[in-house]
């Protein structure tokens, strides 16, 4: 899949998964990288950046058999940002589709 398309959309994808529920790193990254081929490392960078921007917060939660997992949670600002990005994506895709003839 085209790298340029992916890069633009990844942040929205990460935010959208978190809009549904809090997720821990492995689970979230596995799910996204199964839908589109992407280096998992890139996703962790995106998550870190979102955290630095206070769009996402993290907390630790014990898992049954193993060490504590780091969970990602969408903040209010993150939720608002996701909605803005989603709207922008929608109009962008619609514009491109119009031009391309889809």
């Amino acid at each position, binding site marked *: 899949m085209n790298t*340029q398309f992916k*890069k*633009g959309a*990844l*942040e929205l994808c990460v935010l959208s998964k978190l809009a549904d529920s809090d997720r*821990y*790193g*492995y*689970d979230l*990254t596995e799910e996204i*990288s199964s839908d589109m081929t992407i*280096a*998992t*490392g*890139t996703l*962790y*960078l*995106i*998550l*870190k*950046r979102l955290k630095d921007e206070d769009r996402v917060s993290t907390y630790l939660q014990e898992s049954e*058999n*193993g*060490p504590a*997992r*780091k969970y990602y949670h969408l903040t209010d600002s993150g939720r608002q940002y996701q909605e803005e990005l989603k709207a*922008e994506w929608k109009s962008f895709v619609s514009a491109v589709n119009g031009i391309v003839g889809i």
Partner: protein
Amino acid sequence: MTKVEYMAQLRSGLCGFDKEVRDEIISDYEEHFDEGIALGKSEDEICKELGSVEELVEELKEIGNKKKAFDFSSIDFDKYTEKFAKTLGSIGAAVYRGAGTVADKADGVVQEATAFAKMVAKGFEESMAAHGTKEEKSEDGTDGTQE
């Protein structure tokens, strides 16, 4: 590749970045490996999924560069406006009173202008050191994940 080999590569690649950044990435990757291994994945497979350390470092550098935008809001422009006005006056005086040829007068102008430029540069440097820099966003609102 084994986890040990990959993590060694990662640690080496992250040299030179902030400790906070290094620690967080290493911790995330450690956790990712632990989870994958617990689910029966091979270390080699996990390494492949995580992707190239080189590319990760490149992406980190890009983000880092974006963050070095100078924070102009930290500058006291009034101070420079006043000084600039005085410098213009000095330049005018240097030209008016300047001895000898046009070239000599030009020297006077250059001296005043250079003194002013040095003052501005010093002020900007001090401002950056005191106030830090802020993250720059490109025009379209993204900050580097799009080209």
